[in-house]
């Protein structure tokens, strides 16, 4: 059994491209940040901690912004912003994106402050810095939430 391929109007392609690309960069930035932060947590140098912070600041946040702006753009293109109520998949997407931004900002600020303190302290004993644990926890949670959002965006549950 097969299904018929759905062809989108050409005018939807650019916002969709930017939406997907932004989301991919954001997720990539989170994966990179988590790798560096986990390395820092296990006692490696504060340089890993700093690199984790930079991955969030220069990777995840810009990617998020592109993804979120393009999401609004394509929502408008598809006319989905005029519906009386959001379909479930859009609700999941907005929920993850908007609540996720708050967590992303907290993780970035926490990692930034924590890594600065760790560097000021000579770059040792990063596991004792609370910031690295908070940032690892939030980044891990965000990755799981984004996986759910990817599922919702692709399968579009009713």
């Amino acid at each position, binding site marked *: *059994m*097969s*299904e*018929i*391929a759905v*062809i989108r109007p*050409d005018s939807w*392609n650019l916002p*969709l*491209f930017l939406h*997907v*690309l932004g*989301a*991919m*960069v954001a*997720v*990539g*930035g989170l*994966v*990179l940040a988590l*790798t*560096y932060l*986990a*390395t820092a947590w296990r006692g*490696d*140098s504060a*340089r*890993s901690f700093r*690199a984790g912070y*930079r*991955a969030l600041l220069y*990777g995840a946040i810009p990617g998020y912004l592109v993804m979120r702006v393009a999401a609004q753009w394509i929502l408008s293109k598809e006319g989905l912003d005029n519906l009386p109520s959001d379909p479930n998949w859009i609700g999941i997407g907005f929920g993850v994106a908007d609540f996720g931004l708050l967590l992303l900002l907290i993780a970035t600020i926490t990692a930034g402050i924590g890594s600065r303190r760790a560097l000021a302290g000579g770059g040792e004993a990063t596991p004792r810095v609370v910031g690295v644990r908070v940032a690892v926890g939030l980044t891990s949670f965000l990755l799981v939430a984004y*996986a759910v959002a*990817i*599922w919702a*965006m*692709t*399968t579009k549950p009713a």
Partner: protein
Amino acid sequence: MYDFLLFSHVLSAFFLLAMVVIYSSFALGGPAPNRAVTLAQVLDGIGGIGTIVFGVWLALYLDGYELWDGWIVAAFVLWAAAAETGRRSHAALRLAGATEATSEPTTVDPAMVRWHLIRSALILVLLADMIFKPGA
């Protein structure tokens, strides 16, 4: 079935892009601890195989797409070129000794940066090809 195939295909593409972001950090001189290099390789492997397997499966499953459609053939070529440039990028990273480093400043091999930039551009064009589907 369609939902499963599409989700798996897209998730695999996310893995590939995550690998590109990690390698971009290495290319910019960021730390390259063994764990990060290994993770990038795993993401590259799963993402590469996942995109091609589920992509072909989707093309076969859906009426309206054929494996010999121009944009799908272009995707095969781009995918293969990205895989080869990725292999060269990783080889250059190893030659530079980055995989032996922990989190200390990394020596960046220009060859690694060059191959990584080419691979990143190929994957970007591949993503555009998947979404714009020229000729479909």
